[in-house]
């Protein structure tokens, strides 16, 4: 083999290595706020446990990577064929060396395995004393959140207080989904539990958020056509804000008085034309078939197909974190839900008139 192609090759390799370094540097220089769904910026006790374990394994992997690839590159350079090379020594192996490079990786693995097992036992047991309990129910393609002790049912946006131990109990109403809130709770699959399921598999998860904020997440297990848009938000509020949020959400909740609202509230609603017109459209348009809504006869229903729409006006997003909750998006959704989210289970019994859509938009947004 001549020299020059070899040199060209080495120049190539050097360039490739340089490019690799630049890419790595660029990746490292990137800051986490640019990635609101990142796993590398943990904001709870649970994800900090996971993250510190990941970082230990990561650095072991980096060390092994650098040493082995460096050895490989050294060998490739040092032992390249040169003209007139004699036949190399025909060695068949070296038992000592082979024992060494069996034992060293085994030792490194012990350093990974011990913290791994410790963390497994910390992360996979259900929390003994959650301060707030939330039931998470996956649906094709949205999330239901219930607060059984606080009497709240909501969808797609889980609100929790900061610095309190949150205990999740999770299952699914149809197929397997996976609840993933990268900064707060990592990921657990949720399994279908039907009314006649004999041995329901209800997965627990827990976390204590350490800072107030708005965190995104999404379903991580393929669950059908709109798996990609089965998003969620976890909104961490201060204690006072959380209590206020709960108090407001209890009005018309199926878990409080079966959805019946206090006579005072009811009479206020009945006096409001936006409300009465909207509710009429809600009933006439067939929305009640799938959606519970405060003030309607089926406000107390828990097993309808679609999300509970009480207090919809205070949700920040629409269609499971798919669109911003603006009047225009909501109107577009009501006009053509299949066009907004193809394959979604929302089918209109009949097309809504523009008047109905306007009434519904105003009505849904008024319920904060």
């Amino acid at each position, binding site marked *: 083999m001549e020299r020059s192609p070899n040199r060209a090759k080495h120049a190539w390799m050097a360039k490739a290595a340089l490019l690799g370094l630049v890419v790595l540097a660029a990746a490292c220089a990137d800051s986490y706020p640019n990635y*609101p769904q990142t*796993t590398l910026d943990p904001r709870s006790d649970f994800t900090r446990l996971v993250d510190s374990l990941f970082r230990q394994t990561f650095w072991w992997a980096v060390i092994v990577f650098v040493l082995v690839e460096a050895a490989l590159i050294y060998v490739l350079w040092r032992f390249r*064929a040169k003209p007139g090379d004699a036949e*190399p020594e025909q060695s068949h192996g070296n038992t000592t060396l082979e024992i060494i490079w069996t034992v060293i990786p085994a030792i490194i693995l012990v350093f990974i*395995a011990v913290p791994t*097992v410790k963390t497994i036992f910390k992360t996979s047991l259900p929390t003994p004393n959650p301060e707030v309990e939330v039931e998470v129910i996956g649906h094709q393609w949205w999330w239901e959140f219930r607060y059984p002790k606080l009497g709240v049912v909501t969808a797609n946006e889980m609100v929790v207080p900061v610095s309190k131990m949150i205990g999740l109990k999770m299952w699914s109403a149809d197929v397997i989904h996976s609840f*993933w809130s990268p900064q707060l709770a990592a990921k657990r699959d949720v399994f279908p539990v039907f009314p006649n399921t*004999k041995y329901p*598999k209800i997965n627990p998860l827990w976390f204590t958020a350490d800072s107030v904020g708005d965190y995104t997440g999404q379903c*991580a297990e393929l669950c059908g056509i709109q798996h990609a848009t089965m998003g969620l938000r976890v909104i961490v509020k201060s204690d006072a804000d959380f209590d206020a949020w709960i108090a407001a959400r209890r009005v018309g909740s199926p878990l409080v008085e079966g959805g019946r609202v206090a006579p005072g509230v009811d009479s206020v609603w009945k006096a409001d034309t936006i409300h009465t017109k909207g509710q009429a459209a809600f009933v006439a348009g067939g929305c009640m078939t799938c959606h519970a809504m405060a003030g309607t006869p089926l406000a107390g229903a828990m097993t309808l197909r679609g999300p509970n729409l009480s207090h919809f006006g205070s949700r920040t997003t629409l269609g499971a974190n798919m669109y911003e909750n603006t009047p225009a998006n909501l109107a577009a959704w009501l006009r053509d839900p299949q066009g907004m989210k193809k394959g979604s289970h929302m089918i209109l019994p009949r097309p809504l008139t523009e008047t109905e859509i306007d009434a519904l938009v105003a009505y849904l947004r008024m319920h904060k």
Partner: protein
Amino acid sequence: MATSVLEHRPPALPHAHPKTGIWSWITTVDHKRIGIMYGATSFLFFLLGGLEALIMRMQLIGPNGKLVDPDTFNALFTMHGTTMIFLGVMPLSAMFFNYFIPIQIGARDVAFPRLNAFSYWVFLLGGLFINASFIVGTPPDGGWFGYANLTSSRVMSATAAAPSPGLNIDFWVLGLQILGVASLAAAVNFFVTIVNMRAPGMRMLRMPMFVWMSFVVQVLLVLAFPVITVALILLMFDRNFGSSFFMPDGGGDPVMWQHLFWIFGHPEVYILILPAFGITSEILPVFSRKPLFGYTAMVFSGIFIGFVGFGVWSHHMFATGMGPFADTFFAIATMVIAIPTGVKIFNWVGTMWGGSIRYTTAMLSAIAMVALFIIGGLSGVMHSSPPADLQQTDTYFIVAHFHYVLFGGAIFGLTAGAYYWWPKMFGRLLNESLGKVHFWLMFIGMNLTFFPMHFLGLHGMPRRVYTYPEGLGFEFWNRVETFGSFMLAAGFLVFIVNIIKTWRGPRNAPADPWHGATLEWSIPSPPQEFNFPKLPVVHSSVPQWDARRAAGGELPEPELVSGEDIHMPNPSYWPLVAAIGVFLVFFSLLFIRTWPSWWMFTIFSVLWLFYGVYRWAFEPAH
């Protein structure tokens, strides 16, 4: 590395049955021709799978992609995975099993030549069957892992877009069963071939490493495929006959599908990668001019990987919440696999240490296989840790991991094998300059496509999403990946150009263009139908190097002989008839829900199959 360019070889010598024309290929039972058919077919399927990947990359080039519909995207990644695994990498390995296992062990053919033809035809029909779903408009869309209960029709049936369950998953369920028949028949065949057909002196511990790794693969196939077959039959019952094996409302459990699938699925990973390990272990010594470092350790690490590979399946399921004890067991078992894999990597480096390395395209690809597999292996160790995996599973980090293992590992290994063995198979050396262009495009393209997936996964991008919104920071690396994927595609275009150019060029390959160590280099390129005029007697694991040493230099070109007195099996079309029978049986099951008289078609198909097998059994083989 051709040192001499041979004159155009005279046409093959006459033999009892025709050697040219389409009929000679349809009826062939020659392991070499079957190998070439496996290679050509699976390369076409591989290109199809690559095309599917390119469409996905175009969709994901920016946020809110609108190129394809969400259901089409689900079909694309389902078929990309299914195609690459069952119709791409596995049969590409089968090409080399077919062509080189018999030759490397000094045999004239496989143990059951007609069964071999049968395997190929069943594979071809199975591949066409699954892909026919695109033509009918109902491609499988439940992922290559087909998780129940998403794939159990009762739940899917309720979608507004598809009020009644389509045939999408049925195509997948039945197609995989057809392919399973092909894989099992081939596995039994190669297993028996390796055990029984070795030349005198070819002891087990003298077998070339490619044969050894292939041997482990056949054992894995025989043990793993029955499990997936059972799972698929249960799923078929759930879909068609109202059973509830995986349905939680009837007492079934969707997690059981995951266990059954991954008891098959994890050994499947080794089925995909071990042949590439074997090829790499063939190529590194030849181009370093040194024997394989630690032959015995390489054999036993391969066996150990295969064995422990059956005890790690649940590491695909850490997010299901199996409890701390199962998590611990499967985490440790998975970490243990890193040890024999490390032994292999170090022994490969040890093989090249002190050698005299010639950088042919085959060698570059084999080295890249080692270098890239290290990355895939290390990210594998990262998610062998269950808590860490709770962040990584079902994200692009996993996509990065297994593409480093299966593209960086398996495809680079197979590419190395293609450049290394092409002259033996076709009597023509692939062009080395084009080969290097191919290699570098593939190497850089591969890293540009798959390395950023690590970042995206850790930054929260899940797998199997047809779109992602703005604002999550996924735009930049997705654009880089799409760019890289087109570079990869360009690499394969160069490969195709190289193939066409070489095919048109003269027969320029000597018997031993690389100074190889194993028996295939002792016979003409391409070999005659009977491979060896006289069965070789083997004294070491490097018989061809022994011969060179004994001769004190270059060996003369082996002569073509008439081989009239060598009895080779007769051509037969009954394997094809029987294969069509297998195909028809599964095809008929596609109509269970839509055609009340489907069972009449099934009975007809079974009779067809029996008739084919009957005629095959009573046909004189010689």
